């Protein structure tokens, strides 16, 4: 039972939900995915395409993996040929292409979970809800799911996830919320490590674009960016014509 929850999920955000066993994490995810309706209150603005991955997918379905995924693709609104193409593509991506023609009842737990992940990613969902979706996947498939999550957020989609592993997508989540005592404790937006670059440009040259630019004492500029973007910025500075001179690169804590 969850009460008094107010939660806004911005586009492009990766949101982690934490909390103890049986606390209501799965319930919240089901509400967000639209599987259950809240008894009171409303959930508005859900994107038209929602993908959901349950923790376990023991799908005793009388269909092959490819046939199931094609059906689900059409349920997501894709034309038949496109649904079949994407079904094959997602199975390939998660290393399950060999099981395309295998009846779902014969799939191992891990392969079943790959099909579960594949169906949620068929239609490039605007909202992706992952309830311990990594459980049971092999290492390459887990890494592939991490990549798929990054792709969804980069494309402006929202991803909400629960996972027992605290290192899952560590540093990538924009917000960590906690469920405690039947309600949601909003977490602050976690700032990842940042990097400050002290660069000196050619006299009279334009400043590099972007926020976090400030004049440095003693000449040049200080550029502050997220650690994950620092390589790209350095490349841009060094390949500019004429190039910038880099004095220092420093990680901020």
């Amino acid at each position: 039972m969850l009460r008094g929850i107010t939660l806004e999920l911005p586009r492009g955000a990766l949101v982690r939900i934490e909390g103890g066993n049986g606390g209501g994490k799965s319930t919240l995810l089901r509400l967000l995915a639209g599987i259950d309706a809240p008894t009171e209150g409303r959930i508005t603005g859900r994107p038209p395409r929602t993908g959901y991955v349950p923790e376990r997918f023991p799908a005793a379905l009388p269909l092959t993996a490819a046939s199931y995924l094609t059906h689900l693709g059409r349920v997501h609104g894709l034309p038949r040929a496109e649904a079949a193409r994407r079904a094959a593509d997602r199975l390939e991506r998660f290393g399950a292409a060999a099981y395309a023609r295998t009846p779902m009842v014969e799939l191992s737990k891990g392969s079943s979970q790959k099909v579960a992940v594949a169906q949620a990613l068929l239609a490039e969902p605007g909202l992706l809800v992952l309830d311990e979706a990594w459980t049971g996947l092999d290492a390459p498939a887990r890494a592939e799911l991490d990549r798929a999550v990054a792709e969804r957020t980069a494309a402006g989609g929202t991803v909400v996830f629960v996972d027992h592993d605290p290192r899952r997508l560590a540093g990538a989540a924009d917000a960590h919320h906690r469920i405690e005592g039947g309600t949601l404790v909003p977490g602050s937006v976690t700032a990842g490590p940042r990097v400050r670059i002290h660069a000196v440009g050619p006299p009279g040259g334009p400043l590099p674009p972007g926020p976090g630019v400030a004049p440095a004492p003693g000449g040049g500029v200080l550029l502050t960016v997220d650690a994950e973007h620092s390589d790209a910025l350095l490349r841009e500075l060094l390949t500019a014509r004429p190039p910038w001179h880099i004095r220092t690169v420093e990680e901020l804590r």
Partner: protein
Amino acid sequence: MTALLRYQGALLLRSQRWLAPLITYAAFVAAGIRPGDPALDSLGFAAAGLVPTTAWLVRISVTGEPDAARDCTAAAAGPVRVHAAALLTGLAGALLAGAAAAAVALLIGDRAGAGAGPAALAGALAVAACALTGAAVGALCSRPLVRRRGYAVLAGTLGSLLAWLLAFSPARGAVSALVTAARSGTAPLPLAPLAGALLLAAAAGAAASLTAARRS
């Protein structure tokens, strides 16, 4: 909705769980109608047998998808539409079976009194009325309204019996219209029972589908 119906249809067809109700229905019809019987009588019998058959098929259809898979489908299409599609799939299967049984009843029965055309129309209306009534019973006696398997089977059996016996039941209305007409020799037009069955099925289907989104 088309994609959902296609998906639910594939699940029902490939599960082969439709075999038991359809074989039971075929046995019921085979035992009850004889070559040379009045066609309207046989049509009424075939339609009556469709009430529990439809309830059973609808139950199979709404319980065919494992919970985890149903959650994924519900996230994709919404739980109300998913449940409605499952109900319609069961009903469609029952209508096919009923049409086949009615065709047999019409072919081997004695069409002398009523004439083939009017008898066929009366049979089609009665089959539709009974299938819709059975679908209402199935929808009300399956998840999400009745979750325990034992209670659901018991409720479905009782519900089908009541649909046969209660005076205001559309299924009873349609069947007795045919059986009464078989004696007089003029084909009836059981439009009122069909309208009642449509209303009943729509109300039951809406109640079950809207409950599907409520947290269990």
